[in-house]
Protein backbone atom coordinates (compact mmCIF):
# COMPACT_ATOMS: atom_id res chain seq x y z
CA UNK A 1 0.00 0.00 0.00
CA UNK A 2 1.03 3.57 -0.50
CA UNK A 3 3.59 4.76 2.00
CA UNK A 4 4.62 1.37 3.34
CA UNK A 5 8.10 -0.07 3.70
CA UNK A 6 8.86 -2.87 1.23
CA UNK A 7 11.68 -5.37 1.76
CA UNK A 8 12.99 -7.53 -1.04
CA UNK A 9 13.82 -11.07 0.06
CA UNK A 10 17.19 -12.41 -1.04
CA UNK A 11 16.07 -15.65 -2.65
CA UNK A 12 18.77 -17.53 -4.48
CA UNK A 13 18.56 -21.12 -5.70
CA UNK A 14 15.55 -21.78 -3.51
CA UNK A 15 17.03 -20.45 -0.29
CA UNK A 16 16.65 -17.31 1.77
CA UNK A 17 19.92 -15.93 3.11
CA UNK A 18 20.53 -14.19 6.43
CA UNK A 19 20.45 -10.74 4.91
CA UNK A 20 16.76 -11.23 4.12
CA UNK A 21 16.08 -11.40 7.84
CA UNK A 22 18.45 -8.55 8.62
CA UNK A 23 16.45 -6.37 6.23
CA UNK A 24 13.15 -7.53 7.71
CA UNK A 25 14.42 -6.48 11.15
CA UNK A 26 15.50 -3.11 9.80
CA UNK A 27 12.31 -2.75 7.77
CA UNK A 28 10.17 -3.44 10.83
CA UNK A 29 11.96 -0.71 12.75
CA UNK A 30 11.46 1.77 9.92
CA UNK A 31 7.82 0.81 9.35
CA UNK A 32 7.08 1.26 13.06
CA UNK A 33 8.95 4.56 13.05
CA UNK A 34 6.88 5.81 10.14
CA UNK A 35 3.66 4.28 11.45
CA UNK A 36 3.12 2.15 8.34
CA UNK A 37 3.03 -1.56 7.47
CA UNK A 38 5.99 -3.72 6.59
CA UNK A 39 5.63 -5.58 3.33
CA UNK A 40 7.98 -8.00 1.65
CA UNK A 41 8.38 -9.11 -1.93
CA UNK A 42 9.83 -12.40 -3.03
CA UNK A 43 10.75 -13.13 -6.62
CA UNK A 44 11.35 -16.47 -8.33
CA UNK A 45 9.60 -19.58 -9.55
CA UNK A 46 8.12 -22.53 -7.67
CA UNK A 47 8.73 -20.70 -4.43
CA UNK A 48 6.71 -23.18 -2.35
CA UNK A 49 6.82 -22.37 1.33
CA UNK A 50 9.39 -19.57 1.08
CA UNK A 51 6.88 -16.66 1.26
CA UNK A 52 5.60 -17.96 4.59
CA UNK A 53 9.10 -17.80 6.01
CA UNK A 54 8.94 -14.00 5.91
CA UNK A 55 6.90 -13.87 9.12
CA UNK A 56 8.14 -10.44 10.17
CA UNK A 57 6.21 -8.85 7.30
CA UNK A 58 2.52 -8.00 7.40
CA UNK A 59 2.06 -8.73 3.71
CA UNK A 60 4.22 -10.71 1.28
CA UNK A 61 3.95 -10.05 -2.44
CA UNK A 62 4.85 -13.23 -4.21
CA UNK A 63 6.13 -12.91 -7.77
CA UNK A 64 6.19 -16.51 -8.91
CA UNK A 65 6.74 -16.74 -12.64
CA UNK A 66 8.70 -19.10 -14.92
CA UNK A 67 10.43 -16.05 -16.43
CA UNK A 68 11.81 -15.34 -12.95
CA UNK A 69 13.17 -18.84 -12.30
CA UNK A 70 16.75 -17.65 -12.76
CA UNK A 71 18.32 -14.45 -11.47
CA UNK A 72 18.22 -12.38 -14.65
CA UNK A 73 18.56 -8.86 -13.22
CA UNK A 74 16.54 -7.17 -15.94
CA UNK A 75 13.59 -9.55 -15.54
CA UNK A 76 13.62 -9.16 -11.76
CA UNK A 77 13.83 -5.41 -12.17
CA UNK A 78 10.79 -5.37 -14.46
CA UNK A 79 8.81 -7.49 -12.02
CA UNK A 80 9.74 -5.40 -8.99
CA UNK A 81 9.02 -2.17 -10.84
CA UNK A 82 5.46 -3.39 -11.46
CA UNK A 83 4.87 -4.17 -7.80
CA UNK A 84 6.36 -0.86 -6.75
CA UNK A 85 4.17 1.06 -9.19
CA UNK A 86 1.10 -0.74 -7.85
CA UNK A 87 1.97 -0.47 -4.17
CA UNK A 88 3.67 2.93 -4.08
CA UNK A 89 5.85 2.18 -1.06
CA UNK A 90 7.73 4.99 0.68
CA UNK A 91 10.91 2.95 0.68
CA UNK A 92 12.23 -0.27 -0.84
CA UNK A 93 15.03 -2.10 0.96
CA UNK A 94 17.13 -4.27 -1.34
CA UNK A 95 19.84 -6.59 -0.01
CA UNK A 96 23.31 -5.69 -1.26
CA UNK A 97 24.28 -9.15 -2.48
CA UNK A 98 25.78 -10.26 -5.75
CA UNK A 99 22.37 -11.64 -6.73
CA UNK A 100 20.70 -8.25 -6.37
CA UNK A 101 23.68 -6.07 -7.32
CA UNK A 102 22.58 -5.22 -10.87
CA UNK A 103 19.04 -4.68 -9.76
CA UNK A 104 20.30 -1.85 -7.60
CA UNK A 105 21.30 -0.06 -10.78
CA UNK A 106 18.48 -1.11 -13.09
CA UNK A 107 15.49 -0.54 -10.83
CA UNK A 108 16.07 3.12 -9.90
CA UNK A 109 16.97 3.81 -13.54
CA UNK A 110 13.72 2.23 -14.69
CA UNK A 111 11.57 4.02 -12.10
CA UNK A 112 13.61 7.22 -12.19
CA UNK A 113 13.54 6.96 -8.42
CA UNK A 114 16.12 8.14 -5.88
CA UNK A 115 18.65 5.49 -4.91
CA UNK A 116 20.97 5.28 -1.91
CA UNK A 117 23.83 2.83 -2.28
CA UNK A 118 25.95 1.00 0.31
CA UNK A 119 23.57 1.72 3.24
CA UNK A 120 24.98 0.46 6.52
CA UNK A 121 22.15 1.83 8.60
CA UNK A 122 18.83 3.56 8.05
CA UNK A 123 16.83 5.50 10.64
CA UNK A 124 13.68 7.54 10.84
CA UNK A 125 14.61 11.14 11.64
CA UNK A 126 11.77 13.67 11.87
CA UNK A 127 9.49 11.39 9.92
CA UNK A 128 12.01 11.00 7.12
CA UNK A 129 14.36 8.16 6.28
CA UNK A 130 18.03 8.97 6.73
CA UNK A 131 20.66 6.49 5.61
CA UNK A 132 24.27 6.12 6.63
CA UNK A 133 26.17 5.06 3.53
CA UNK A 134 29.70 3.70 3.36
CA UNK A 135 31.80 5.14 0.59
CA UNK A 136 35.33 4.82 -0.75
CA UNK A 137 35.84 1.25 0.39
CA UNK A 138 34.89 2.15 3.96
CA UNK A 139 37.11 5.24 4.28
CA UNK A 140 34.20 7.69 4.37
CA UNK A 141 30.61 7.61 5.45
CA UNK A 142 27.76 9.91 4.55
CA UNK A 143 24.34 10.74 5.93
CA UNK A 144 21.98 10.85 3.01
CA UNK A 145 18.28 11.44 2.35
CA UNK A 146 16.14 11.01 -0.74
CA UNK A 147 14.16 13.80 -2.34
CA UNK A 148 11.31 11.72 -3.69
CA UNK A 149 9.45 8.46 -3.34
CA UNK A 150 9.87 5.56 -3.62
CA UNK A 151 13.31 5.71 -2.07
CA UNK A 152 15.35 2.66 -3.10
CA UNK A 153 18.01 1.59 -0.63
CA UNK A 154 20.80 -0.91 -1.25
CA UNK A 155 21.49 -2.24 2.24
CA UNK A 156 24.80 -3.91 3.13
CA UNK A 157 24.98 -7.12 5.18
CA UNK A 158 25.06 -6.59 8.94
CA UNK A 159 22.64 -3.65 9.30
CA UNK A 160 20.66 -5.61 11.94
CA UNK A 161 20.95 -9.12 13.32
CA UNK A 162 19.24 -11.81 11.30
CA UNK A 163 17.83 -13.30 14.53
CA UNK A 164 15.80 -10.15 15.08
CA UNK A 165 14.11 -10.61 11.71
CA UNK A 166 13.39 -14.33 12.03
CA UNK A 167 9.91 -13.94 13.41
CA UNK A 168 7.18 -16.56 13.27
CA UNK A 169 4.09 -15.05 11.78
CA UNK A 170 1.39 -15.61 9.25
CA UNK A 171 1.82 -12.84 6.70
CA UNK A 172 -0.88 -12.34 4.11
CA UNK A 173 0.63 -13.76 0.94
CA UNK A 174 -0.53 -12.01 -2.20
CA UNK A 175 0.25 -13.52 -5.57
CA UNK A 176 1.25 -10.73 -7.89
CA UNK A 177 1.19 -11.35 -11.59
CA UNK A 178 3.46 -9.45 -13.92
CA UNK A 179 4.34 -9.65 -17.58
CA UNK A 180 8.06 -9.95 -18.22
CA UNK A 181 9.49 -8.82 -21.53
CA UNK A 182 12.52 -10.44 -23.03
CA UNK A 183 15.49 -8.25 -22.10
CA UNK A 184 18.06 -9.83 -24.39
CA UNK A 185 19.74 -11.39 -21.34
CA UNK A 186 19.31 -15.13 -20.92
CA UNK A 187 20.51 -17.34 -18.11
CA UNK A 188 22.19 -20.56 -19.23
CA UNK A 189 23.67 -22.44 -16.28
CA UNK A 190 25.68 -22.24 -13.10
CA UNK A 191 29.35 -23.08 -12.99
CA UNK A 192 30.36 -24.37 -9.58
CA UNK A 193 33.80 -23.35 -8.32
CA UNK A 194 36.57 -25.86 -8.77
CA UNK A 195 37.26 -27.50 -5.47
CA UNK A 196 40.51 -26.10 -4.15
CA UNK A 197 43.21 -28.17 -2.51
CA UNK A 198 42.04 -26.87 0.86
CA UNK A 199 38.66 -25.65 2.05
CA UNK A 200 39.43 -22.32 3.71
CA UNK A 201 36.09 -22.33 5.55
CA UNK A 202 37.33 -25.34 7.54
CA UNK A 203 40.66 -23.86 8.67
CA UNK A 204 41.31 -22.68 12.22
CA UNK A 205 44.13 -20.39 11.15
CA UNK A 206 44.07 -18.21 8.05
CA UNK A 207 46.87 -15.94 6.90
CA UNK A 208 45.16 -13.60 4.49
CA UNK A 209 47.05 -11.43 2.04
CA UNK A 210 45.92 -8.34 0.16
CA UNK A 211 47.27 -6.05 -2.49
CA UNK A 212 49.55 -4.49 0.13
CA UNK A 213 51.86 -7.52 0.21
CA UNK A 214 53.09 -6.26 -3.16
CA UNK A 215 54.17 -9.50 -4.83
CA UNK A 216 53.58 -13.18 -5.28
CA UNK A 217 56.86 -13.85 -3.44
CA UNK A 218 55.43 -12.43 -0.25
CA UNK A 219 52.43 -14.72 -0.65
CA UNK A 220 54.94 -17.59 -0.33
CA UNK A 221 56.10 -16.21 3.04
CA UNK A 222 52.47 -16.08 4.14
CA UNK A 223 52.13 -19.70 3.02
CA UNK A 224 55.13 -20.71 5.14
CA UNK A 225 53.70 -18.86 8.12
CA UNK A 226 50.35 -20.58 7.64
CA UNK A 227 52.10 -23.94 7.51
CA UNK A 228 53.93 -23.21 10.78
CA UNK A 229 50.65 -22.27 12.47
CA UNK A 230 48.76 -25.23 11.06
CA UNK A 231 46.53 -23.22 8.76
CA UNK A 232 46.20 -22.03 5.20
CA UNK A 233 46.71 -18.90 3.18
CA UNK A 234 43.83 -16.98 1.62
CA UNK A 235 43.37 -13.49 0.22
CA UNK A 236 41.40 -10.52 -0.95
CA UNK A 237 40.09 -10.12 -4.43
CA UNK A 238 43.04 -8.26 -6.06
CA UNK A 239 45.37 -11.07 -5.02
CA UNK A 240 43.11 -13.58 -6.76
CA UNK A 241 42.73 -11.32 -9.82
CA UNK A 242 46.52 -11.07 -10.03
CA UNK A 243 46.69 -14.85 -10.12
CA UNK A 244 48.78 -15.05 -6.93
CA UNK A 245 46.17 -17.35 -5.36
CA UNK A 246 43.37 -19.45 -6.82
CA UNK A 247 39.72 -18.42 -6.65
CA UNK A 248 39.05 -21.05 -4.00
CA UNK A 249 41.15 -18.91 -1.62
CA UNK A 250 39.09 -15.72 -1.94
CA UNK A 251 37.45 -14.38 1.20
CA UNK A 252 34.46 -12.04 0.98
CA UNK A 253 31.22 -11.29 -0.79
CA UNK A 254 32.06 -13.20 -3.96
CA UNK A 255 34.24 -15.75 -2.21
CA UNK A 256 34.04 -17.65 1.06
CA UNK A 257 32.68 -16.58 4.43
CA UNK A 258 35.22 -17.72 7.04
CA UNK A 259 35.23 -17.80 10.85
CA UNK A 260 38.64 -19.15 11.88
CA UNK A 261 40.17 -18.87 15.35
CA UNK A 262 42.90 -16.66 13.92
CA UNK A 263 42.73 -14.38 10.88
CA UNK A 264 45.81 -12.36 10.03
CA UNK A 265 45.01 -9.70 7.42
CA UNK A 266 48.24 -8.49 5.80
CA UNK A 267 48.03 -5.56 3.39
CA UNK A 268 44.23 -5.67 3.25
CA UNK A 269 42.34 -2.37 3.43
CA UNK A 270 39.12 -3.81 4.85
CA UNK A 271 36.60 -2.91 2.16
CA UNK A 272 33.03 -3.88 3.13
CA UNK A 273 33.03 -6.68 0.53
CA UNK A 274 36.05 -8.26 2.21
CA UNK A 275 34.98 -7.62 5.79
CA UNK A 276 31.64 -9.38 5.37
CA UNK A 277 33.59 -12.57 4.74
CA UNK A 278 35.82 -12.52 7.84
CA UNK A 279 34.42 -10.20 10.52
CA UNK A 280 33.25 -13.05 12.74
CA UNK A 281 36.71 -14.60 13.14
CA UNK A 282 37.71 -15.11 16.81
CA UNK A 283 40.99 -13.18 16.69
CA UNK A 284 41.73 -10.74 13.90
CA UNK A 285 45.18 -9.23 13.48
CA UNK A 286 45.65 -6.52 10.87
CA UNK A 287 48.95 -5.32 9.43
CA UNK A 288 48.52 -2.27 7.26
CA UNK A 289 50.70 0.80 6.66
CA UNK A 290 47.64 3.07 6.57
CA UNK A 291 46.47 3.96 10.10
CA UNK A 292 43.10 4.95 8.63
CA UNK A 293 42.48 1.59 6.94
CA UNK A 294 38.94 0.36 7.73
CA UNK A 295 40.30 -3.11 8.58
CA UNK A 296 41.28 -1.67 11.97
CA UNK A 297 37.63 -1.25 12.90
CA UNK A 298 37.11 -5.03 12.84
CA UNK A 299 40.59 -6.13 13.98
CA UNK A 300 41.43 -7.00 17.60
CA UNK A 301 45.11 -6.22 17.13
CA UNK A 302 46.71 -3.92 14.64
CA UNK A 303 50.18 -2.92 13.52
CA UNK A 304 50.81 0.07 11.28
CA UNK A 305 53.88 -1.43 9.63
CA UNK A 306 55.04 -2.79 6.32
CA UNK A 307 53.54 -6.26 5.96
CA UNK A 308 56.48 -7.31 3.80
CA UNK A 309 58.67 -6.81 6.90
CA UNK A 310 56.26 -8.09 9.55
CA UNK A 311 55.38 -11.36 7.80
CA UNK A 312 58.99 -12.63 7.57
CA UNK A 313 59.74 -11.34 11.09
CA UNK A 314 56.69 -13.15 12.40
CA UNK A 315 57.68 -16.31 10.54
CA UNK A 316 61.11 -16.19 12.20
CA UNK A 317 59.63 -15.45 15.61
CA UNK A 318 57.12 -18.30 15.35
CA UNK A 319 59.86 -20.72 14.25
CA UNK A 320 62.08 -19.58 17.13
CA UNK A 321 59.24 -20.05 19.61
CA UNK A 322 58.51 -23.55 18.32
CA UNK A 323 62.24 -24.30 18.61
Amino acid at each position, binding site marked *: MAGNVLVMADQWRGELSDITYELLALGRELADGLGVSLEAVIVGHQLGELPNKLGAADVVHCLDNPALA*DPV*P*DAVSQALAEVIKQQEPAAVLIPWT*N*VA*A*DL*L*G*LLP*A*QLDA*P*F*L*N*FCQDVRVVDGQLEARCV*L*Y*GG*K*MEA*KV*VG*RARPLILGVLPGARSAEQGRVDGAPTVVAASVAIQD*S*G*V*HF*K*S*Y*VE*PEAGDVDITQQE*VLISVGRGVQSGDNVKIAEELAAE*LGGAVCGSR*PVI*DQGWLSLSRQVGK*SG*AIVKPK*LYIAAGI*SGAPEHVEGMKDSD*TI*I*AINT*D*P*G*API*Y*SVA*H*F*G*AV*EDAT*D*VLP*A*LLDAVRAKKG
Partner: protein
Amino acid sequence: MNIVAILKMVPDVVEEFEVAADGKSLDIEFLRLIVNERDEHALEQALILKELLGGSVTALALDAPDIDDVLFTALAKGADRAVKVTGVEEGLTTRSAASILAQTLPNVPDLLPAELILTGCQAIDDIDAQAPALLARRLQLPYLGLVSGVEVDASTNTAKVAKEFAGGVRGEFELTLPAVLGIQAAEKPPRYVPVAKVRAAMKEGEIEEVTAPVASEAALIDIIEMNVPEVAGRAEMLEGDADEIAARLCDVLVERGLL
Protein backbone atom coordinates in the same frame (compact mmCIF):
# COMPACT_ATOMS: atom_id res chain seq x y z
CA MET B 1 33.72 -6.07 -33.38
CA ASN B 2 33.65 -2.48 -32.17
CA ILE B 3 34.02 -1.97 -28.46
CA VAL B 4 33.82 1.11 -26.27
CA ALA B 5 35.59 0.94 -22.90
CA ILE B 6 34.60 3.65 -20.44
CA LEU B 7 37.12 4.81 -17.88
CA LYS B 8 36.67 6.80 -14.70
CA MET B 9 38.99 8.32 -12.11
CA VAL B 10 38.48 7.59 -8.42
CA PRO B 11 40.49 8.49 -5.32
CA ASP B 12 43.12 5.94 -4.31
CA VAL B 13 41.91 4.36 -1.07
CA VAL B 14 45.42 4.21 0.35
CA GLU B 15 45.40 8.00 0.73
CA GLU B 16 44.35 9.96 3.77
CA PHE B 17 40.75 11.09 3.28
CA GLU B 18 39.38 14.40 4.52
CA VAL B 19 36.01 16.05 4.40
CA ALA B 20 35.80 19.21 2.29
CA ALA B 21 34.88 22.60 3.77
CA ASP B 22 31.20 22.12 2.88
CA GLY B 23 31.09 19.21 5.34
CA LYS B 24 29.38 16.97 2.83
CA SER B 25 31.87 15.96 0.22
CA LEU B 26 35.31 14.48 -0.07
CA ASP B 27 38.17 16.97 -0.26
CA ILE B 28 39.88 15.88 -3.45
CA GLU B 29 42.26 18.82 -3.75
CA PHE B 30 45.30 16.89 -2.56
CA LEU B 31 44.07 13.38 -3.32
CA ARG B 32 45.71 11.22 -5.90
CA LEU B 33 43.21 9.94 -8.41
CA ILE B 34 43.64 6.59 -10.09
CA VAL B 35 41.65 4.75 -12.74
CA ASN B 36 38.85 2.76 -11.17
CA GLU B 37 40.44 -0.67 -10.93
CA ARG B 38 37.57 -2.47 -12.61
CA ASP B 39 37.72 -0.07 -15.57
CA GLU B 40 41.25 -1.27 -16.24
CA HIS B 41 39.75 -4.74 -16.39
CA ALA B 42 37.07 -3.47 -18.78
CA LEU B 43 39.74 -2.05 -21.07
CA GLU B 44 41.77 -5.25 -20.83
CA GLN B 45 38.74 -7.36 -21.72
CA ALA B 46 38.05 -5.06 -24.68
CA LEU B 47 41.64 -5.43 -25.94
CA ILE B 48 41.53 -9.22 -25.53
CA LEU B 49 38.32 -9.42 -27.58
CA LYS B 50 39.76 -7.17 -30.27
CA GLU B 51 42.88 -9.32 -30.53
CA LEU B 52 40.67 -12.37 -30.97
CA LEU B 53 38.04 -10.99 -33.31
CA GLY B 54 39.46 -7.88 -34.93
CA GLY B 55 37.66 -4.56 -34.92
CA SER B 56 38.40 -1.54 -32.79
CA VAL B 57 38.54 -0.39 -29.20
CA THR B 58 37.67 3.15 -28.19
CA ALA B 59 38.61 4.31 -24.71
CA LEU B 60 36.27 7.05 -23.54
CA ALA B 61 36.23 9.11 -20.36
CA LEU B 62 34.68 12.19 -18.86
CA ASP B 63 37.23 14.94 -18.28
CA ALA B 64 39.02 14.65 -14.92
CA PRO B 65 42.46 15.38 -13.48
CA ASP B 66 45.15 13.20 -15.13
CA ILE B 67 42.64 11.77 -17.58
CA ASP B 68 44.89 12.56 -20.57
CA ASP B 69 47.60 10.29 -19.16
CA VAL B 70 45.04 7.57 -18.69
CA LEU B 71 43.72 7.89 -22.23
CA PHE B 72 47.24 7.92 -23.72
CA THR B 73 48.03 4.83 -21.67
CA ALA B 74 44.95 3.19 -23.17
CA LEU B 75 46.24 4.04 -26.66
CA ALA B 76 49.65 2.65 -25.74
CA LYS B 77 48.00 -0.56 -24.60
CA GLY B 78 46.34 -0.98 -27.97
CA ALA B 79 43.16 1.08 -28.04
CA ASP B 80 42.47 2.57 -31.46
CA ARG B 81 40.75 5.75 -30.37
CA ALA B 82 40.68 7.86 -27.23
CA VAL B 83 37.77 10.19 -26.59
CA LYS B 84 37.48 12.79 -23.84
CA VAL B 85 34.14 14.34 -22.94
CA THR B 86 34.83 17.95 -21.99
CA GLY B 87 32.77 20.62 -20.31
CA VAL B 88 31.72 18.45 -17.36
CA GLU B 89 31.39 19.88 -13.86
CA GLU B 90 33.63 18.66 -11.10
CA GLY B 91 32.20 16.34 -8.48
CA LEU B 92 29.40 14.91 -10.59
CA THR B 93 27.30 12.24 -8.95
CA THR B 94 27.24 8.88 -10.67
CA ARG B 95 23.70 9.51 -11.86
CA SER B 96 24.62 12.78 -13.58
CA ALA B 97 27.76 11.24 -15.05
CA ALA B 98 25.82 8.31 -16.47
CA SER B 99 23.24 10.64 -17.90
CA ILE B 100 25.96 12.66 -19.62
CA LEU B 101 27.44 9.46 -21.02
CA ALA B 102 24.06 8.35 -22.33
CA GLN B 103 23.54 11.67 -24.07
CA THR B 104 27.09 11.94 -25.39
CA LEU B 105 27.83 8.48 -26.76
CA PRO B 106 25.35 8.75 -29.65
CA ASN B 107 26.96 12.05 -30.67
CA VAL B 108 30.54 10.83 -30.91
CA PRO B 109 31.33 10.48 -34.63
CA ASP B 110 31.49 6.87 -35.85
CA LEU B 111 31.17 5.35 -32.40
CA LEU B 112 27.74 3.75 -32.16
CA PRO B 113 26.48 1.23 -32.86
CA ALA B 114 29.30 -0.60 -31.11
CA GLU B 115 28.69 -4.26 -30.35
CA LEU B 116 29.87 -3.88 -26.78
CA ILE B 117 30.08 -1.06 -24.29
CA LEU B 118 32.30 -2.25 -21.46
CA THR B 119 32.45 -0.34 -18.20
CA GLY B 120 33.80 -1.10 -14.78
CA CYS B 121 31.25 -1.62 -12.08
CA GLN B 122 30.63 -0.83 -8.42
CA ALA B 123 32.98 2.13 -8.21
CA ILE B 124 33.79 3.10 -4.62
CA ASP B 125 32.08 6.48 -4.92
CA ASP B 126 28.72 5.36 -6.28
CA ILE B 127 26.15 6.80 -3.99
CA ASP B 128 23.11 7.55 -6.12
CA ALA B 129 23.28 5.22 -9.12
CA GLN B 130 25.15 2.57 -11.01
CA ALA B 131 26.43 4.16 -14.17
CA PRO B 132 26.39 1.19 -16.57
CA ALA B 133 22.86 0.13 -15.60
CA LEU B 134 21.55 3.64 -16.12
CA LEU B 135 23.49 3.97 -19.36
CA ALA B 136 22.06 0.68 -20.64
CA ARG B 137 18.50 1.66 -19.71
CA ARG B 138 18.81 5.02 -21.43
CA LEU B 139 20.36 3.50 -24.56
CA GLN B 140 17.81 0.66 -24.37
CA LEU B 141 20.47 -2.03 -24.45
CA PRO B 142 20.72 -5.29 -22.53
CA TYR B 143 22.87 -5.06 -19.41
CA LEU B 144 24.70 -7.37 -17.08
CA GLY B 145 27.15 -6.43 -14.33
CA LEU B 146 29.69 -8.23 -12.11
CA VAL B 147 30.97 -9.87 -15.26
CA SER B 148 34.21 -11.82 -15.19
CA GLY B 149 34.55 -13.35 -18.62
CA VAL B 150 33.18 -12.55 -22.08
CA GLU B 151 33.14 -14.68 -25.23
CA VAL B 152 31.61 -13.30 -28.40
CA ASP B 153 30.00 -15.36 -31.13
CA ALA B 154 30.02 -13.02 -34.12
CA SER B 155 27.94 -15.37 -36.27
CA THR B 156 24.95 -15.20 -33.92
CA ASN B 157 25.69 -11.72 -32.64
CA THR B 158 25.64 -12.90 -29.05
CA ALA B 159 27.99 -12.84 -26.11
CA LYS B 160 28.44 -15.60 -23.56
CA VAL B 161 29.16 -13.93 -20.28
CA ALA B 162 30.14 -15.19 -16.82
CA LYS B 163 28.64 -13.36 -13.88
CA GLU B 164 29.81 -13.73 -10.28
CA PHE B 165 27.54 -14.95 -7.54
CA ALA B 166 28.56 -15.85 -4.00
CA GLY B 167 30.94 -18.58 -2.86
CA GLY B 168 32.85 -18.64 -6.14
CA VAL B 169 29.77 -19.73 -8.12
CA ARG B 170 29.38 -18.18 -11.55
CA GLY B 171 26.35 -17.98 -13.76
CA GLU B 172 26.62 -18.21 -17.52
CA PHE B 173 24.40 -15.85 -19.45
CA GLU B 174 23.86 -15.16 -23.11
CA LEU B 175 23.26 -11.61 -24.26
CA THR B 176 22.11 -10.28 -27.60
CA LEU B 177 24.49 -7.65 -28.93
CA PRO B 178 24.84 -4.71 -28.79
CA ALA B 179 24.95 -4.72 -24.99
CA VAL B 180 26.46 -2.96 -22.00
CA LEU B 181 28.57 -5.05 -19.61
CA GLY B 182 29.85 -3.98 -16.19
CA ILE B 183 33.17 -5.79 -15.89
CA GLN B 184 34.32 -7.04 -12.51
CA ALA B 185 37.43 -8.83 -13.72
CA ALA B 186 38.96 -9.47 -17.13
CA GLU B 187 39.99 -13.01 -17.96
CA LYS B 188 43.64 -11.93 -17.51
CA PRO B 189 45.14 -9.26 -15.23
CA PRO B 190 45.38 -5.89 -17.01
CA ARG B 191 48.49 -5.68 -19.16
CA TYR B 192 51.46 -3.60 -18.19
CA VAL B 193 52.70 -1.01 -20.64
CA PRO B 194 56.21 0.47 -20.50
CA VAL B 195 56.49 4.21 -19.95
CA ALA B 196 58.34 4.59 -23.25
CA LYS B 197 55.30 3.32 -25.11
CA VAL B 198 53.04 5.74 -23.27
CA ARG B 199 55.40 8.59 -24.20
CA ALA B 200 55.26 7.49 -27.82
CA ALA B 201 51.47 7.47 -27.67
CA MET B 202 51.58 10.99 -26.26
CA LYS B 203 53.66 12.10 -29.22
CA GLU B 204 51.87 10.26 -31.98
CA GLY B 205 48.43 9.61 -30.59
CA GLU B 206 45.51 11.95 -30.44
CA ILE B 207 42.73 12.45 -27.93
CA GLU B 208 39.46 13.40 -29.60
CA GLU B 209 37.32 15.83 -27.67
CA VAL B 210 33.55 15.99 -27.59
CA THR B 211 31.52 18.43 -25.55
CA ALA B 212 29.10 17.28 -22.90
CA PRO B 213 25.46 18.26 -23.27
CA VAL B 214 24.31 21.23 -21.20
CA ALA B 215 21.12 19.67 -19.89
CA SER B 216 21.92 18.23 -16.52
CA GLU B 217 20.05 15.76 -14.39
CA ALA B 218 18.17 16.98 -11.32
CA ALA B 219 19.57 15.41 -8.15
CA LEU B 220 17.26 12.96 -6.40
CA ILE B 221 19.19 12.70 -3.15
CA ASP B 222 20.87 15.04 -0.68
CA ILE B 223 24.05 14.33 1.21
CA ILE B 224 23.59 15.93 4.63
CA GLU B 225 27.06 15.29 5.91
CA MET B 226 30.16 13.23 5.29
CA ASN B 227 32.56 11.90 7.92
CA VAL B 228 35.77 9.99 8.19
CA PRO B 229 34.69 7.00 10.29
CA GLU B 230 36.52 6.29 13.52
CA VAL B 231 38.42 3.11 12.66
CA ALA B 232 40.82 2.33 15.45
CA GLY B 233 38.14 2.00 18.12
CA ARG B 234 38.37 -1.72 18.62
CA ALA B 235 41.90 -2.76 17.73
CA GLU B 236 44.74 -2.77 20.23
CA MET B 237 47.55 -1.18 18.25
CA LEU B 238 51.04 -2.65 18.56
CA GLU B 239 54.00 -0.31 18.33
CA GLY B 240 57.63 -0.82 17.41
CA ASP B 241 59.63 -2.10 14.47
CA ALA B 242 58.78 -5.26 12.57
CA ASP B 243 60.72 -7.51 14.96
CA GLU B 244 59.14 -5.99 18.05
CA ILE B 245 55.69 -6.33 16.53
CA ALA B 246 56.42 -9.92 15.54
CA ALA B 247 57.54 -10.72 19.10
CA ARG B 248 54.40 -9.14 20.56
CA LEU B 249 52.19 -11.01 18.05
CA CYS B 250 53.87 -14.25 19.05
CA ASP B 251 52.91 -13.54 22.66
CA VAL B 252 49.32 -12.90 21.59
CA LEU B 253 49.26 -16.22 19.71
CA VAL B 254 50.61 -18.06 22.75
CA GLU B 255 48.16 -16.31 25.11
CA ARG B 256 45.27 -17.33 22.89
CA GLY B 257 46.43 -20.92 22.55
CA LEU B 258 47.17 -20.50 18.85
CA LEU B 259 50.87 -21.30 19.12
